[in-house]
């Protein structure tokens, strides 16, 4: 007995998917917390640690705290902050991040990053891997992290990679 699926159903499904704004495809919302554009850098074959970056903001009227993170690609995940003071680069663990409305937190190269400690296998450009962020109020938020090039400075199409003429930051067309 063959199952005949009405063609109309396909059309509806396709239209539904096509209607999703492209920018929304990489934004995750769990109640009061919005996580956008999680991305990571590809790692060397022998690299022990990797870095993932993303933006976190809270909806109006709510605030929260990021208190943990984990991922199947690494043994541990911790937030670290890079500082360069008097020419000396240091990384310091950040135990929690407070999120308040109107103050998005950007984890970006040179600043804070999710350090993926003890990678189980190299992160390859083009891969996608799950990262679970734990918030005090919102609980666990799972996101899919896109792996960009090893020296990428932002997610694809946004802050740009090594383009020498475009070091200034996020593409204005994608500001939000």
């Amino acid at each position, binding site marked *: 007995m063959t199952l005949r699926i009405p063609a109309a159903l396909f059309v509806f499904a396709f239209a539904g998917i096509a209607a999703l704004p492209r920018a929304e495809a990489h934004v995750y919302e769990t109640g009061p917390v919005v996580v956008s554009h999680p991305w990571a*850098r*590809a*790692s*060397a*074959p*022998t*690299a*022990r*640690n*990797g*870095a993932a970056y993303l933006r976190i903001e809270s909806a109006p009227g709510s605030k929260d705290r990021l208190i943990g993170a984990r991922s199947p690609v690494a*043994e*541990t995940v*911790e937030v*670290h902050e*890079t500082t*360069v003071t*008097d*020419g*000396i*680069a*240091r*990384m*310091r*663990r950040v135990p929690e991040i407070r999120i308040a409305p109107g103050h998005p937190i950007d984890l970006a*190269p*040179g600043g804070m*990053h999710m*350090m*993926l*400690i*003890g990678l189980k296998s190299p992160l390859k450009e083009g891969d996608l891997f799950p990262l679970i962020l734990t918030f005090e109020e919102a609980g666990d938020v799972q996101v899919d992290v896109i792996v960009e090039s*090893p*020296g*990428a*400075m932002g997610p694809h199409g946004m802050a740009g*990679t*090594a383009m*020498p*003429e475009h*070091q200034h930051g996020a593409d204005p067309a994608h500001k939000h």
Partner: protein
Amino acid sequence: MFGKGIAAAASLLVLAAGAGVWWWNSKTAIPAPTSVTAASLTFGGPFSLVDHTGQKVTDRDYHGSFTFVFFGFTTCPDVCPTTLQNVASVLQLLGDDGAKVRPLFVTVDPERDTPATLAGYVTLFDPRIVGLTGTPEQIAQVARAYRIHYRKASDSGAGYLMEHTAVLFLMAPDGRYLAHIPPDMPPRRMAETIRQHMADSRSPSSTTERPQ
């Protein structure tokens, strides 16, 4: 009588403070601005290391090219990849002149960064970048020569992380120090700085002092 004692004590205090400041400066190893004469504060010098192909090298192996010397470690996922990417961009921006510059990435973590580890890391960014490691003593020697501060820091599940001077050094083809470049300088400006030094070295009217 009392006055003489106080004056003596005061001068001793000033002397001690001066010595303390000098000692502190030598420990923190902040690279000097380029206006300081080479005779009073030099960077660079002989080194004996192992490159990422496992070959033993010395500083003389790189004479004849400008070298771009900088320090880092491969378990660093944030600053070092950014710096390596900037260096790769600089090489691209230099075009044909890129062949005259050898970027040397020296590890401050010789215990974990073997030649193979370095090879996987530096070649991700540009095949022309050379990774250098060695024994802890060899690394200590080259770090001293470039006045590089480096230290194990440990506050995470990552084992230890290295804090280290993040500045880049431009050295002339004869091994002389030319300039230091902050790690956050945009690649375009880094390339301009290198081009300027290349032009200066070619200029017949160059008045750059040469050490005897």
